[in-house]
C-alpha cells in the first residue's frame, strides 16, 4: 500500500501538483496518495499483532487454476471465437475443480455453449467473436 501510495505521489508530482488556488491535474491524486501512504504505514504497524488475514493453504490451488483458465480464455477468445474456450473452461471447472462426473461435465459444458450462443448471438445480437 505504501509503495502504491509512493508511486502515486511520484506520478502526481510529475503531472504538476498545482496549488490550492490553481489546482492542477496532479493535485487530487497527490492528496489521495498521501493519505494512502499514511494508511499503509498504519496497516503495517498493526499487521504484526493482528492475525486478521486468512492463511493461504492448499485450498488456494483451485483458485490459481481457475484464474489460469480464465487467462487462457481471454488470450484465445479474440482469435478462435468464444465457443471452444467456453466449453473448455466449463469442462475444466466442472470436472477438475468441481469433481463432477465426466458425463455431467461434458453435457453441461455443451449445454452452456448452446445457451450462450442462442442468448448472445441469437437473441441479443452482440458482436462476440464466434465461429459460425
Amino acid at each position, binding site marked *: 500500500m505504501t509503495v502504491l501510495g509512493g508511486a502515486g505521489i511520484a506520478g502526481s508530482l510529475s503531472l504538476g501538483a498545482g496549488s490550492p488556488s490553481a489546482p492542477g491535474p496532479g493535485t487530487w491524486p497527490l492528496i489521495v496518495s498521501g*493519505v494512502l501512504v499514511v494508511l499503509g504505514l498504519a496497516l503495517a504497524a498493526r499487521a504484526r499483532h493482528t492475525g486478521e488475514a486468512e492463511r493461504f493453504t492448499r485450498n488456494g490451488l483451485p*483458485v490459481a487454476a481457475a484464474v489460469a483458465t*480464465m487467462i487462457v480464455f481471454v488470450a484465445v477468445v479474440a482469435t478462435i471465437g468464444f465457443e471452444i474456450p467456453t466449453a473448455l473452461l466449463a469442462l475444466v471447472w466442472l470436472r477438475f475443480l468441481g469433481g463432477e462426473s465426466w458425463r455431467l461435465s461434458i453435457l453441461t459444458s455443451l449445454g452452456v455453449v448452446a445457451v450462450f450462443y442462442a442468448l448472445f448471438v441469437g437473441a441479443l445480437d452482440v458482436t462476440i467473436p464466434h465461429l459460425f
Partner: protein
Amino acid sequence: MSSVLSGFAVVIEPENLLYCLIGVVIGMLIGVLPGLGPAATIAILLPLTFGLEPVTAVIMLAGIFYGAQYGGTITSVLLRLPGEASSVVTVFDGHALARQGRAGAALGVAAIGSFVGGTLSIIVLSLVAPLVAGFALDFGPPEYTALALLGILLVATISGGGRIRALTAAAVGLLLATVGRDDFTSAERFTLGNLSLADGLDFVPIAMGLFGLGEILYNLEDRHRAIKVPAHVANVWPSRADLRQSSGAIGRGSALGFVLGILPGGGAVLSSMAAYALEKRRSKHPERFGKGAIEGVAAPESANNAAATSSYIPLLSLGVPANATMAVIFGALLIQGVTPGPQLVTEHPELFWGVVNSMYLGNVLLLIMSIPLVGLFVRILRVRATVLAPITVLITLVGAYTVNNSVFDIGLVIAFGVLGYLMKKFGFEPGPLVLAFVLGSLLETSLRRSLLLFGGDPTGFLTRPISGTLLLFLLLVVLAPAAQALLHRRANRQNQLDWANRQDQDSRMSR
C-alpha cells in the same frame, strides 16, 4: 401528484412488469443460494441491462436487491444457513422455530414483515425523496465535496473488517478513479501509455471483477458444501397469535430499518442487526430470544426490507450511493446516460416514479411468491455450487466483453477478480473501494471547483452553512470511534477492578 400517477403508468407497461418479475425472481434465487450477494449479482448482470430502457433496467436491478432480502430468510430459517448477510440474525430464532416444527410460522411472519417494512418504506420514500431533492438543488461544489467525503467515510467506518483497512480500500478506489484523462486539463494520468486506459477505468469491469468474480473465486475454496435439504415445509401461514405477537416488532423494525437505510453505510445488514438487538432489549423475556421468539424473526426481516428501500433516497435525491449495492446501481444509471442527483425527480420524473412505484408491485409479487413457493425455492438448493460456478464465471466473462466489445475489459474483470479475492483473503471489504471509485470523480471535480471558487482558501468550506455542518458531522464521525475506544479502555480497567460485577456482558452480546 400527476407524476406519481404517471409513474404507475410506467410500471404497468408489460415490459416493465416482466422485468420487475424477472428481477424479484432472480433476487429470490440468489437470496436462497449462499455465496453470491445482491451487489455481486447486480454487477454480473449489468451488461444485460444495456439494451434496456433506463427505467426498465433499474426496475429489474431494484427487484434483485429487495428480492434477495426475502430469499435470504428461507435458508436462514430452514437450514441455519443465511443466504444473505442481512439475514444472519434471522438464523437465531428462525432456525430455532424451524426445529420446533414451526418453520412455516417463521417464514410467513418474515414474508409479511418484509412486505410491511418494504411498503411502509416506499410510502415514506415517495414523500421524503422529492423534498430532499428540492433542498439539494441549491447544493454547490463545496456541499458536494463534503457530502461525498462524508459518504465514503461513513461507509468505511461502518463496514466490516477494520476501519483502517476499509479506509485504505476507499483510498485505492479514489486513486483508481483518477486514471485516464483529466476533466479540466485533459492531461493523461496514470495511463502508462495504454490507449485503452485513456478514457479512464470503466466502472462495470471493476464492479464485475471485485464483487462478482472475486466472490466466485473466494467460494471456490469450498466454503459451501453438503447442504442437506429438508423434504418439505408444511403450513406457511402464521397463526393469529404469531401475528399479534410480532406486529409491534414489525412496526419498530420497519421504522428503524428505514432510518438506518438512509444513512450512508447503513443498509440492510446493519439495520437487521440493530432491529434484533432493539427487540431483545425491549422484551420482558429476553431469554426467549435465540430459542424461537417470533419477534426475533419479524423485526430484522422488516428492517432489512425497509432499509433496502430507503437506501434509494440518498441515491435518487442526492446522487450519493449509501452502500455497495447502491454504488452498483449508480453505475448502472451512469451507463444509461442518467446522472442520479437532485435534478432526477424533475428531469426524469418517469424514471424516478417508475422505479419507486415498481417497488410496490415487486413487494406484492414477492409476498405472493414467497408464501406458496417456498418449497420450490428450497429445491433450488440442490443445484450444486460446482455446477453454478462455471456458469456464473462464463456469464461474467462474456458479459464483460459485450459492454464495449472489448477483450481488454475481460482482462480487467479478471484482474479485479483476483484483486477482489485477495482483498477478501486479507480481510478487506471490496465495498468501500467500489463506492469510492464511483464517487471519486464527483469528489475531485467538486473539490477543485470549490477551491477555484474560494480562491484557494480551504476555510471557505466552513463558512458555507451546509458544507460547514456536513464537515462538522464528518469530524464527529472521525472522532467518535476514538472517543469510544477511550471509554472502552476505561470501562475495561473498571471491570478488572471489580471482577465480580460482570453485567455489561449482556450489552456486549447484543452489540
